[in-house]
């Protein structure tokens, strides 16, 4: 036995030190000369989720509800008495609500994801032929995928901006035209649908989902952080980069520009505002900016900083790298004129440049940020990538 005892001793030393190490490492928080030391208190995901829910998502929903309700009122006034004044009011309310929408579309998590909120609000280009068919039928299904481009803000854009060259021509369609009553009925259906779907989402958030959200603190595929990050990245990639720039500019397919695929196609001069609003909302969300106070709180930025996420080769913090890329995209956005339709027609290289710049941000969000947070994107077993 004597000749084996060193193994016994060796093993016991390892085993005991294992237990000891596990139980004592809390006493020694990061004494290293790390220029970007991890700050453990910032890695509290519950605090992050609470801030994001209470100070960003819910107030944004409340703000949007205000604009949506105002639009409902104006649309009812217009439906009751279509004239130049009510049309102008309705249009302004539509612009306000559409712009506010850009600040909530990115929360693709929980009830919004379950109800596919976005599909009922902002699938463009609007299907004008389909809308006209729906007006004729009067009873068309609005809850099926084929109906998505026939409702929401893009459909309203067509209905209040796209029916004629002049306001008079548009008003005729709601007053003296043979199908005027049916058109008004469809307008009401579209706005009612928006109100119904959004109310369902907001109600679930304020009643049951908020607590569920802040308490799902893991990073597995069903956790709030994972869903939020994945939804956020998807939104930036597919609905800001591709939808607003990649597709209309033709950067995505064949290089053939498709100016008619811009957002707010009939209003035209609103498209850049919408894109800028959506982009700024994505930046603010990344930085955890409180919607009410404008102050930054716990969010992706503080979480990444607390994790000590940085490029191990250059030593630069990942947050700075990403924010610099956001700024680069913004700079390209600022060179554009208000109508992205006109930009595609006359200045498409600038559109493609925005897409290219945003693509760089997409990669950082999708790969560097997600990896640094070790967010799970599948539920399959994994023994290390």
């Amino acid at each position, binding site marked *: 036995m004597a000749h084996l005892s060193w193994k016994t001793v060796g093993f016991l030393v390892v085993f005991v030190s294992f237990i000891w190490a596990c139980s004592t490492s809390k006493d020694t928080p990061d004494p290293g000369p790390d220029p970007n030391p991890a700050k453990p208190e910032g890695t509290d*995901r519950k605090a992050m989720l609470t801030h994001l829910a209470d100070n960003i998502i819910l107030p944004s929903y409340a703000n949007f509800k205000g604009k949506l309700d105002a639009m409902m009122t104006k649309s009812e006034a217009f439906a009751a008495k279509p004239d130049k004044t009510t049309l102008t009011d309705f249009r302004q309310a539509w612009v306000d609500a559409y712009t506010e929408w850009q600040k909530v579309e990115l929360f693709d998590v929980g009830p919004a994801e379950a109800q596919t909120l976005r599909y009922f609000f902002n699938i463009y280009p609007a299907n004008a032929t389909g809308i006209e068919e729906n007006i004729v039928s009067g009873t068309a299904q609005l809850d099926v995928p084929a109906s998505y481009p026939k409702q929401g803000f893009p459909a309203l854009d067509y209905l209040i901006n796209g029916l004629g060259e002049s306001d008079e021509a548009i008003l005729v369609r709601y007053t003296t035209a043979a199908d005027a009553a049916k058109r008004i009925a469809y307008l009401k259906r579209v706005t009612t649908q928006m109100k119904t779907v959004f109310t369902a989402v907001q109600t679930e958030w304020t009643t049951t989902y908020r607590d569920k959200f802040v308490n799902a603190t893991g990073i597995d595929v069903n956790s709030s952080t994972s869903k939020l990050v994945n939804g956020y990245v998807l939104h930036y990639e597919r609905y800001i980069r591709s939808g607003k720039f990649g597709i209309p500019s033709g950067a995505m397919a064949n290089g053939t520009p498709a100016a008619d695929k811009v957002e707010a196609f009939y209003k035209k001069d609103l498209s850049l505002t919408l894109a800028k609003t959506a982009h700024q909302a994505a930046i603010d969300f990344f930085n955890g900016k409180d919607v009410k106070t404008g102050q930054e709180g716990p969010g992706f930025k503080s979480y990444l900083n607390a994790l000590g996420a940085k490029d191990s080769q250059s030593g630069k913090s990942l947050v700075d790298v990403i924010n610099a890329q956001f700024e680069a995209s913004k700079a390209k956005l600022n060179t554009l004129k208000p109508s992205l339709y006109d930009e595609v027609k006359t200045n498409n290289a600038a559109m493609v440049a925005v897409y290219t710049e945003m693509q760089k941000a997409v990669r950082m969000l999708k790969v560097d940020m997600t990896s640094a947070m070790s967010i799970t994107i*599948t539920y399959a077993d994994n*023994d*290390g990538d």
Partner: protein
Amino acid sequence: MGRYLRTYTSAAPLSVFRIAFGLMIFGSVVRFWSKGWIDDFYIKPSFFFPYYGFEFIKPLGEYTYLLFVACGLSALLVAVGWFYRTASVLLFLSFTYIELMDKSTYLNHYYFVSLVAFLLLFLPANVYFSVDAHQNRTDSYDQIPRWTIDSLRLLMGIVYVYAGLAKLNSDWLLEALPLRIWLPGRNDLPIIGFLFNYRETAFTFSWLGALYDLSIPFFLLNRFTRPFAYVAVVVFHVLTVILFPIGMFPYIMIVAALIFFSAGFHQRIIAVLSRLLRLPAALVGSGKKKVYSGRQARLLLSGLAVFFVVQLLFPFRYALYPNELFWSEEGYRFSWRVMLMEKMGHVQFKVVDEKGQQIMVNNEDHLTRLQEKMMATQPDMLVQFAHYLRDYYARQGFQKPEVYVDTYVSLNGRLGKPYIDPTVNLAQETDSFTPKKWILPFGDEIKGL
């Protein structure tokens, strides 16, 4: 050596191993099925990533379920030792077939299971405490050659030591990567969660993990350290269950490590099992010794020798490639490299043809999330998918489609960078064991084995 080969020992450890292994595989199949993964991974996808040389192995549509039935049933038959020879062949073939259907589900422990199932084809695991022995389908023996049990111990030892050797690299030891990235994700665990906010924890786990892997087989071999070592096995693997979505691997290793225990220990297990299940005493205790004929023994032993030489050498094949192993993954699989990388990628394929047609591919139209994730960081899968796209778009009317890919890959916290040469037409490149010249340089170095 000759004396060692003529040493005989109780057949109990091998029989207990057979039972435990069969039941674990059966459990794995039930778990896989109940999670809906057969459908998600092997039926729904429109494309699968075959292994080099095994391109003919594909899922069987709805019949894939039958494959899992065959695997589960044969695992049960192996466990009870009923028609063992047939069942073990069926188990090895069905399990291995399943694993070869799609690379994106590759896990080291599936490979381990296949190797064990392969060894069990040749080992006398059914001569004792089995239905076959009881029903005289096979002769019953109490004693078997010691090397039959030791071969399983050796395989386990290789798994652990090689997993430990793989951890001897600068990322793991000096940076505590990837544990430093992964552990904070578990900081919401009760009681121990807060520990994972500290880098010291990641370093402690990294070093102890490497030490554990390198040393545990030796401590398990020694009868004085064995009980402590086994406690360490349980603690280590249970920790990995708590911390990582690693599947059945920890449980399989915890159970498989019992093979290191003595004959007496396993005889007690069998005695308890017999009592609990009210089995006839005749199942054990024929008092006979399983002696292989000279020719049988030579054949078996030389086969085993070849098997183990391959096992020892194969994981080092990466040294034949010029690229950084973790970056290019040339020679990465089948080498017990477990939990070594946090690697993530984003890939955008572009298909163009002579007439100037061009399309940006949405990967999700063709791949599952798991497949896309796995492909994004593994060059052999990228080229396989490129070939699929080439053929797909040729059918869509593209003339001689060319496939290019824009890639961005991050490895262990390094900022992402382009992975594949975007100017190379992957439609024309082939996957092979030769170095892939179109993998862009890593631009960093991970020192170590």
